[in-house]
């Protein structure tokens, strides 16, 4: 349903400042893992160009699932601002 706009909806200047922090260690390791997994898997495919089954089963089917697991692992960090929200 349409909702009427209220005074509080106005785009008031944001009071929050944007915090600059160091890259979390887990995220850093996640990026390293992503690079190693990607370059390693593509390298494997180029090293054995005739092994189509390897390309399909490992690179096309397994690596995306590993990315998913890596992404899940990489975000397991406690955010202090979660409670505030």
């Amino acid at each position, binding site marked *: 349903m349409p909702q009427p*706009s*209220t005074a509080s909806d106005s*785009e008031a200047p944001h009071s929050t400042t944007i915090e*600059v922090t160091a890259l979390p260690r887990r995220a850093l390791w996640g990026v390293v893992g992503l690079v190693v997994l990607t370059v390693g*898997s593509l390298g494997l495919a180029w090293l054995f160009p005739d092994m189509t089954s390897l390309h*399909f089963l490992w690179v*096309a089917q397994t690596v995306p699932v590993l990315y998913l697991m890596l992404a899940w692992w990489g975000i397991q960090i406690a955010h202090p601002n979660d409670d505030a929200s």
Partner: protein
Amino acid sequence: MMRLKSWPWRLLLLSFAGLVLLTLLLLLADFAGVPKGVVNGFFLVVSIIGYAVIGMFCRTTTPEEYFVAGRRISAPLNGMATAADWLSAASFIGLTGLLLSDGFVGDGQHPGGLAYLLGWTGGFCLLGFLFAAKLNLSQSITIPDFLGRRFDSAAVRWLAAWGAILCSSVYLVAQIYGIGLVASMLSGLTFELGVFLALGGVLLCSFLGGMRAVTWTQGVQCVVIVVSMVVLGMAVSLKTQGHPFVTIAAAQSLPQIQERAKQIETDPAELTTRDVISLRMSNLDVKIAEPVYAREVERQAVARQVARAKAEGASLREIQKLEANPAWRETSVDRLVGAWQAEREVLAEAIYRPVGFQVPLLNGWNQGWFNSLGLVFCLMLGTAALPHILVRSYTTSTPAEAERSVVWALGIIVMVYLCASALAVLLKSFVLTELVGSHLDQLPDWADRLKLRKLALLSIQDYNQDGIVQFADIRLFNDYLVLGVPEITHISSVFTGLLAAGALAAALSTADGLLLTISNALAQDLYFQTAEPNAPPLRRVMLSKILLMVVALLAAWFATNRPVSILFWVTCAFSLAASTFFPVLLLGIYWRGMNRVGALLAMVSGLVVSAYYIAANHPWVQMRLHLHASDTVWLGLDPVCAGVFGVPAGLLLGYLGSKLSRSA
């Protein structure tokens, strides 16, 4: 509170149940002999009406709802919306055809399909690790808004807005072209009418309800996309191997494909065809080198052929075929050379693309390896920096929810891509075993249908004139080949409608997100920021809506005016986004020393370097400016890999600009 939480899931379950019911009903209709056009048209009409109803139901004029969906979308729903936003016409429709045609590791020169698969999925890891939580925490509305606040600079926000508009526009035109293809295929309407019909659905959704409506619609579209791809994969698997596990079915088919590919590669008829094509390419090279002389010679030859045909009482069609020769038709030398170059590209593709999933004797770390790595780099960084994907980080309530939604999105995308890559393998087996080697007069029924339909998915040219189809004779239209899967694999035509509904959902959902990004950048970051900073909220929403409609119509006009290579332009959009936004976001979020001078330099340098590389290597620009690829290609990388140069340029100048401006 409980009502709010359970309501999204009710809607999504309802859409899932509705889709399954609709498919079953249409399957019954198909068995009962209802014409295919009616069945397909039903999918089109029902899906567009469904999306429009959701849009109308979620209409809003509240800025917080219109721009960021009230910042209270749960992680799973936001993940589904992100996945639908992400799964565009190029990746949903194009990936299967790309893997089928270009193979896994490519032809030794250009990247193969694996580079797209890895780049498009791995980028979500970067998004989750680096940006999602930080963007959510900022409580901004748009990416330019975030950057403008981070650097406390209107100039940064202004430049970022133009960057977002450019990247999203390139992407949007390709999506709208995809929408037109699918809508016209489903409805039987012309391409132009298909574009405007489907655009009506997009506009009803995003125009009325902004991000709130788009989120709900994308949730439903995600269900349609996943169900259509998974069900199609299971049906093809069942048909080919007798079980519904598509990955296993594809793995079972691989040995047979490899064996058949080896036979074809050594077949004398195939080798003769390739020789004929090579000869034609050499002739074209000679013509391109001396176009004026070649045009005169060719015109005289065509004139003689036309005169002889007329004297022999040939049909009008045969005469028109002769007159279709570009040397006869084109008056401009530039356009003639362009036509010859395009013909040469098609011929080159015919002989260089792999028969199986890689060209034979592909050894060593060749140019294809560097191009693949370059493309993966651009696609990953582009995924993590596309404004219409990044903006979804604002719609969840907490940073952790934003990160979790990225994992949900990746899970859904991976599910679709696993099916797409397995389908590519299964389709290849049909092409190699049923089509290659068949007589031109006795083609498989699906080949005839794919050739003759209004939106041709296949063309065959008998280069060696032996009346038999060789692999090099076949041209598959990768961008939308997947739409022909039900015909190729002989499953019910209802799956054509289901698949096209999924493809339409993919293109519409991405177009929705892009339209919102562009219109919000125009209204919020450019107009209100400079002209009316104190404008009331209702006025902001109204202007955004008007601009959204204008942008949609402009993009539709552009897409209907010229053919667009969906995959090429989408990939270029990734390189542009990676170069423009990745350096400034990375340094801006994680380096305290980054200042506004560095931010401006990072964005300008990344965008300029990337845009230059794409433009300078575009055949149209090369023809106009008389450039040669050898002068404009750097390190042998394809134009779509422009981000390989743009991102380091952005990082370097961002760093140097910040350091030097502080010391000055």
